[in-house]
């Protein structure tokens, strides 16, 4: 029900580079897990609403006012690479 090509596609969507051996192993493992997941098909849920919030939460609003937040220097402190006041990344547009 799930083949290596599908798994490769999913890995691309998830931005995961997988080696061939890993791809093969994951295909087999996902096949087993999805086989188990089939269990869900036994239930009739045609009349059931999906759970969005498990407890009745109302929309949470607050006033839109400026408040102190993490300063730029502090936010950049954890950066792998930075340039002036920005995060630095490899080339985006070829």
């Amino acid at each position, binding site marked *: 029900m*799930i083949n290596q090509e599908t798994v490769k596609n999913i890995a691309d969507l998830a931005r995961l580079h997988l080696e061939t051996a890993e791809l093969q192993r994951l295909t087999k493992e996902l096949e087993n897990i999805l086989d188990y997941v089939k269990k869900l098909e036994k239930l009739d849920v045609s009349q059931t609403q999906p759970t969005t919030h498990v407890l009745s939460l109302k929309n949470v609003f607050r006033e839109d006012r400026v408040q102190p937040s993490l300063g730029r220097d502090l936010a950049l402190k954890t950066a*792998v690479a930075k340039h002036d006041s920005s995060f630095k990344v490899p080339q985006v547009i070829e």
Partner: protein
Amino acid sequence: MEPLNSLTAHELLALLKAKKIQPSDIQQSIISQIKDCDQHIKAYVHFHEPVKAAFNLEEGTCPLPIAVKDNMCVNGEETTCCSKILKGFHPPYDATVIARLKKAGSVMSGHTNMDEFAFGSSTENSCYGPTRNPWNLDYVVGGSSGGSAAAVAADEAVWALGSDTGGSIRQPASFCGVVGVKPTYGRVSRYGLIAFASSLDQIGPITKDVTDAALLLKIIAGHDERDSTSADVPVPDYQQSLINDVKNLRLGIPKEYFIDGLDPEVKIAMEEAINLLRSKGAMIQEVSLPHTEYCVVTYYIVATAEASSNLARYDGVRYGLRQRPEKTRKSNIIDMFEETRAHGFGPEVKRRIMLGTYSLSSGYYDAYYLRGQKVRTLIKNDFDKVFTECDAVLTPTSPTAAFKIGERTHDPLSMYLSDICTISANLAGIPAISIPCGFSKKGLPLGLQIMTKPYAEEMMFRVAYTYEQNTPWHKEKPKISFGKNNHG
């Protein structure tokens, strides 16, 4: 007097109040035990600088050290979720629970071991290696908050914080013979908790007894505008709910939890627990949670989907690891993302990201994620109905005692099934506690789980306290034979 590190938080607070000890005495005792034991147990992954200034005992404050799971941000202290992808990450802020503890005068003794990103039930998926069970070093501590549970069990911590997405506080508490609480969804702010599955995650206490759990929950619970899912519901004084009386309380025993795969020793311990509570005047009744068999599968669809989305942020840009492809391969920003994630995540994390991405992807969404969320509604409806019939529900915390290290690592499904009794509380958003209820023949602890309706932690504590006060289990300590105990 017994060594300070072996006392409960409420016993220590009483000694502090009577001015018989200083906060620094407690810190010394904990540090000494860590030095003796942690090389064998490996409960901690990073130790923190004791914040001496915080050791001022004032009325109503709580100047005790606490161990914190490695997925809660502590300002300036390395916080990694036990993942290579976050090594070296020093958060520039405190999680709300940490800020509240600091305000009460607490210091953090350190960050504790866990399954990478809390994905696991044994703490074997940590990039630092497994924690060992203080009751028998060949056995797992459970997970994912295994380091926190082991630190408390081995008296390497006064108490600890864990997080629970499908049983990650309660199952390790059960395996290590300590108390673990998963509060109602929204009871405790998750601001600064590194997210796994946002509709399920809750932070909660891991402690030596029920009184301490009530005390710690009071400190960390309450509304926080930084977590829009935190409930704006007043926090009661949980000490008031520590009543040694269950007379006329209706306790439900769900028949679906007492079938296949339940270890006979666990079954016997449960029957004894039920008999004890009956002898104290509780009205025991069989109840039914008919969708129980769908809990594990629903959980693995909902939790992995949310995890795959939450873990999208680890891309090598703002923090943590950045890995570039080898020079021979082309290299743009996408390659950097893919390589960083390939190197930074362990096998179980990749497996869950893959399953979650699959069930959210176009063409599969309706059959998996949406269907999972619908079945979740059925599971929640089961509990709504049961709590019109009874005040609390009792089950084992786990179908077995702790298993051996390495025994289940090659079979993801068998590992997932060790959470079969705890997952339902997360899916339904309800509070649940695990308390010690005996030992297996091999001398490994067993746990009793008590679940109540949303925000009914007081009822949960009352039943747990009554059981605890009438049994000896919470006073048992593992016989830790290595090292010299030269304190106390």
